[in-house]
């Protein structure tokens, strides 16, 4: 993915999906899809996470997010449950 390209990914069923740009690369996550109520997209630094809390009562399928990610603080969709998937779209900006 070069600058301006779209990055799309889906998790394996019931697994975390962690998108980490390489050094020298930045991206903006513009949409997330999560099947499980209660799970939220997160920023993650490899050890700690901070939740982009949208709602505890609906699936956080966000089609208008602007979550900036870098090599050191990146993006995580937490596991959704048996047979359930997470996904995201992003645009590489640098």
């Amino acid at each position, binding site marked *: 993915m070069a*600058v301006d390209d779209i990055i799309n990914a889906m998790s394996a069923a019931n697994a975390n*999906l962690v998108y980490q740009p*390489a050094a*020298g690369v930045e991206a903006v996550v513009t949409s997330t899809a999560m099947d*499980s109520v209660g*799970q939220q997209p997160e920023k993650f630094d490899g050890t700690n996470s901070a939740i982009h809390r949208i709602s505890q009562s609906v699936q956080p399928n966000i089609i208008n997010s602007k979550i900036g990610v870098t090599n050191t603080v990146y993006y995580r969709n937490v596991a959704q449950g048996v047979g359930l998937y997470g996904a995201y779209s992003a645009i590489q900006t640098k």
Partner: protein
Amino acid sequence: MTLLDDIKAVHDEVNNVSKAKLSQVITEHPDLQIDKINPRVFGSIPQVVGTCPQCGDDMFDSLDKTGKPIQVCRNTINAIRLDSIKHKPSNQSDELCIDCQIITDEFGFITGANHITRSIEDKALSWGIWKGIKTLITANQIQLKQGKVIINES
């Protein structure tokens, strides 16, 4: 070797490849100070500005960490970038990457990774207990086929 050890080896494989690639680039480019390079590539269509006299790969405009323009080959940029997305070693991590998807652009540059991870131990999440790899092994719901981790969870 147990199945858990084998799955840890899958997780650690990216680190081994990264280490070998970085070592190769350092050997091939003895004059380059790898740790001083900011592996930037400019624009949506990076312009080739020459050929690397050391490895023969295409060279591109980039930056050092002070912001000074430099020219670096794709092999060097990719070695630094691969090193930046390697995993925490399996013996220091409570999660394992079971399917590391390296993202490469149409010009051959590594731009990131999608790490598909599973916890080693069970974890309580908002929807219930997320079975860890140890539990999946005990329940015979995880296997390794031709280096690929396959989970059949119910």
